[in-house]
């Protein structure tokens, strides 16, 4: 039987009809739906036993005591450690996304050697370590030829760096990235004391933060937040009042009882005017320089205050009254972005604690004793040179190191007048960067040595800035092996030291930390098990620092320029770390939109500058310029423009590179009268519409 066209059509129709009586279509539809529920290109979930491993995450400045959640041995989340006083179960936004950072696309996967402008080729560790030794050998014993910049404020790695430099005859080359710790320690010295100051927020019933963003990015932020929480039990009356006096409404001020909008140029005036107001309501103290201080403060009359801050004098009076009425008031001085303010601003703020008799008291300002060292050859932390000043010397040729070791720091990005700093780095023949991520500095280095992520290494934290009592934390690796070909920088340095003929007494960082723990009087296993060691603050009194304050220059009036207030928000990253991928969501669309950063100012300032919401403007200051969009925000102090730091990265990964602009480019460095320090808080900028 031949099959004609009509017959074929019937056959096909019959086939289709028959198919409807089979499971083909129905099962096919069901399987297709199941396929759509389990697409092969969508990652599968890990399986296995779950554990919570205590660890120390030093991705944020102060370090978070966390419990890393693992499944089948692989970490997937970091939660707080309820047993550790620094965490009490809380965790900062950076460390909450810390595990994901192990797999950041910006991670340095293995040692890299620079082979051309911006070009790197991967090398073996043996070659890399040999190169390091080879480059340092000829410089041995020539003071000023080797320098190191550390971005780690708390680790004992600093002792190794310092001892190494000293051993190589380059003791003066040890520098630290700027931060509150350096400024405050200098300030304490000016007030006739010694040591790192601490602030007992937990014990205070009135906390005045002048600039210091203590509940978000300043100091041991999680511990600070926990102290705040303890005084504000949900559903019950608060037992402490918090006041924030700073350039803009920020996360800290979001929960404060009061916000006082003080332009960043007027921080010192504010503190002294407050002192004046306090003295006028009867505050007095036994400090030897009280009379001088009183005279100084008297110059900061309500009129001076009003002119400098744009606020009404009643604010001051009201504040003084509240402080006077408090049983345990505490003043925390600082910069809105955790650096760059001079020692004098610190003295002005801290002197209020002296004036109120709060030094060494419960809920007051404390002084921490110098921590015992693991390496006796190491310099004290406070003796480190300020990396900003050092790089400025390199720029002008006053310092001429031939080799620079960069440890967990990003000076090419995070020093004021960043443009100049990048150029200055070019003056140094050999730069080695110990970096976890390919940041701006690593991208300029001649040798990049991958450092492990905090969950892949031993590390410790001694006295994170702000803690009221001596505090020591240590952590051990969660993972047996780093996920990339990384080596502990300290291990590498110790090995290099050996090859350079220098014995520092240790072979690994773990041994160093063990020795440190022993020196402190703590048990290494207990510490790495998630506990913290705490000691007692030392006693001692302070002067009001009147002599130093007397040298402070009167604020200059500049009608063309506006004050620049850099703002720091932990979730946006730190000076060492670009915003983690898991934190990107937290950036508001009034802070960053696409690739444009917003600059915030109040309506009056906007009017004065002739700009409006959404305008694109150029800010010029320091040695550079920054482009941004205007966002009118009534929470910014008079005559001030505020801007988030942590943006404008030229390195890192697709999540951060090229987004926004780097505020460090337009910060102006100036010399502080009488202290010889470099300051850049209170920079001014000019604004032009583009």
């Amino acid at each position, binding site marked *: 039987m031949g099959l004609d066209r009509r017959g074929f059509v019937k056959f096909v129709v019959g086939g289709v009809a028959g198919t409807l009586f089979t499971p083909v279509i129905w099962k096919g*539809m069901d399987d*297709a*739906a199941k*396929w*759509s529920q389990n697409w092969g290109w969508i990652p599968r979930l890990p399986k296995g036993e779950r554990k919570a491993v205590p660890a120390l995450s030093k991705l944020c400045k102060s370090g978070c005591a966390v419990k890393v959640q693992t499944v089948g041995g692989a970490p997937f989340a970091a939660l707080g450690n309820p047993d550790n006083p620094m965490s009490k179960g809380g965790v900062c936004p950076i460390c909450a996304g810390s595990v994901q950072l192990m797999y950041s696309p910006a991670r340095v996967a293995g040692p890299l050697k620079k082979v051309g402008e911006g070009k790197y080729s991967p090398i073996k560790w043996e070659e890399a370590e040999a190169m390091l030794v080879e480059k340092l050998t000829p410089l041995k014993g020539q003071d000023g030829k080797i320098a190191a910049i550390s971005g780690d404020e708390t680790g004992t790695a600093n002792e190794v760096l310092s001892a190494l430099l000293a051993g190589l005859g380059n003791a003066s080359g040890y520098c630290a990235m700027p931060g509150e710790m350096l400024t405050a320690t200098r300030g304490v010295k000016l007030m006739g004391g010694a040591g790192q100051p601490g602030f007992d927020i937990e014990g205070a019933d009135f906390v005045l933060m002048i600039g210091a963003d203590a509940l978000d990015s300043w100091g041991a932020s999680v511990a600070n937040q926990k102290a705040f929480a303890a005084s504000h039990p949900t559903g019950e009356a608060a037992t402490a009042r918090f006041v924030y006096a700073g350039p803009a409404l920020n996360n800290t001020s979001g929960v404060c009882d009061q916000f006082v909008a003080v332009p960043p140029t007027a921080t010192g005036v504010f503190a002294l005017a407050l002192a004046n107001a306090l003295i006028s309501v009867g505050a007095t103290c036994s400090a030897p320089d009280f009379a001088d201080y009183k005279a100084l403060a008297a110059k900061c009359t309500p009129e001076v205050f009003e002119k400098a801050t744009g606020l009404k004098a009643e604010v001051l009076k009201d504040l003084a009254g509240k402080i006077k009425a408090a049983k345990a008031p505490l003043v925390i001085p600082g910069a809105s972005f955790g650096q760059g303010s001079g020692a004098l601003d610190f003295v002005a703020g801290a002197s209020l604690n002296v004036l109120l008799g709060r030094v060494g008291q419960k809920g007051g300002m404390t002084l921490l004793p110098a921590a015992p060292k693991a390496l006796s050859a190491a310099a004290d932390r406070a003796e480190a040179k300020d990396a900003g000043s050092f790089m400025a010397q390199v720029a002008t040729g006053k310092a001429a190191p031939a080799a620079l070791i960069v440890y967990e720091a990003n000076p090419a990005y995070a020093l004021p007048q960043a443009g100049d700093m990048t150029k200055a780095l070019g003056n140094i023949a050999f730069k080695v960067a110990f970096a976890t991520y390919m940041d701006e500095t690593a991208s300029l280095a001649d040798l990049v040595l991958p450092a492990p992520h905090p969950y892949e290494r031993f590390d410790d934290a001694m006295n994170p800035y702000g803690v009221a009592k001596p505090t020591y934390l240590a952590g051990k690796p969660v993972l047996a092996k780093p996920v990339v070909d990384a080596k502990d920088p300290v291990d590498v340095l110790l090995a290099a030291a050996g090859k350079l003929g220098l014995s520092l007494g240790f072979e690994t960082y773990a041994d160093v930390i063990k020795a440190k723990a022993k020196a402190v009087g703590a048990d290494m296993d207990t510490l790495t098990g998630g506990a913290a060691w705490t000691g007692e603050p030392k006693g001692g009194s302070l002067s009001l620092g009147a002599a130093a304050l007397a040298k402070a220059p009167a604020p200059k009036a500049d009608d063309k320029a506006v004050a620049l207030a850099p703002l720091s928000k932990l979730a946006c990253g730190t000076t060492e770390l670009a915003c983690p991928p898991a934190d990107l969501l937290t950036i508001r669309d009034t802070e960053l939109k696409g690739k444009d950063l917003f600059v915030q100012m109040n309506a009056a300032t906007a009017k004065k500058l002739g700009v409006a919401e959404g305008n694109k403007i150029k800010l010029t200051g320091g040695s550079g310029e920054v482009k941004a969009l205007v966002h009118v925000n009534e929470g910014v102090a008079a005559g001030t423009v505020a801007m988030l730091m942590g943006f404008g990265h030229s390195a890192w990964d697709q999540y951060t590179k090229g987004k926004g602009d780097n505020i460090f480019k337009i910060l102006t460095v100036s010399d502080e009268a009488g202290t010889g320090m470099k300051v850049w808080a209170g920079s001014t900028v000019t604004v032009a519409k583009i």
Partner: protein
Amino acid sequence: MDRALFPEGLERCSFGKFALWLLFITVFLLYGLYAMIVIFAKGIVVTGLDNYFGFGLWITVDLAIIALGAGAFFTGFLRYLLKIDQLANIINLAVIVGFICYSGAMLVLCMDIGQPIRCWFGYWHPNVHSMLTEVIFCITCYCIVLVIEYVPIILEQKQLYRIPFIHHLAHNMHLNMALFAGIGAFLSTFHQGSLGGMYGVLAGRPYAFREGFFIWPWTFFLFVLSAVGCGPIFTVLIATLMEKLTGRKLVDYKTKALMGKIAGTMLTVYIFFKLIDTWAWAHDYLPTTGLTFDQMFYGVIYGKWLMFTEIILCGLVPAIMLITPSIRNNPKMLYTAGILDCIGICLNRYLFTVQTIAIPLLPFDKWQTYAPNWAEWATTGLIVAYGFLVLSLSYRYLPIFPQERAMNK
């Protein structure tokens, strides 16, 4: 060339001209198909929809063409159940337009959902409380009814009709058409209503939420009325457009005016209730949510002019025009009223779809705006082009208009 396929005794344009016309339609079809492929391949991330506007042009188009396609069921209902025989002159076109609208709507829905592979979940795992479930079931069923109504028209094609089996089949289907018209009317009423109900039940969206009768919010009834108030006149507009394009007379004006009267009557009833509903909503309901009438509108894009245009200019005005015999009997005025009517209903669907979700309800939230992008426009164009294609082929090869031969002698 294809003369042998033309309906008995009718003239059509040359094949070359027709091919050119098809080519013109194909350009839109291909662009739309391209957009559709992109959408299926990459997902609806390629559209202008976003977190705030989960519904946009597509849903608006869906609702609008389903309303405009209401001519099919309502004309069928009047023709077969109420036996208004004059409507036989236009019923075929009404069915075809209905078929195009409903099949087009189903295609749009398939693109609109994020997981088209799971589209059958709507039937297999239905949520009986969801108005959308009702819509899915009724639209599908009614689309099948429309196919059944469309098939005899196809079977009447000159060459097919010569086959005795097909002849008998077509004849028998015609005989039972009243049954299908009845089913169609029932299904249509429900899903037109459910489409309105979809918005009326949104307790969290004060712009759309309405009280109601039993499980049906007032929007349920308003949508039924508004659909039958525009469907018939839309069919008339299509017929007139076809007349303009082909240069031939297809439907006598008496029938058109009758359709206009039907639509006008329903539109009047609709507008009457719509005005009451809007007043009660603004006066009684909104205050209970703490919102004001003014807060429902924003700038030009979501301004009050839209509501005014919808209800007064494109509602009340055409309603009056259509029920006034002297105006209705003037062709230009009838068509103007028809166009206003259709715009008003489409605008109504747009406002319920987009304005409803554009309003920031959290006091600290901001208005967001929505604009469809190329992918949505291209696929909407695809549906329109598809409609033109089906209509062109049907017109050229099927005997749609019973009066055509007599009127073009």
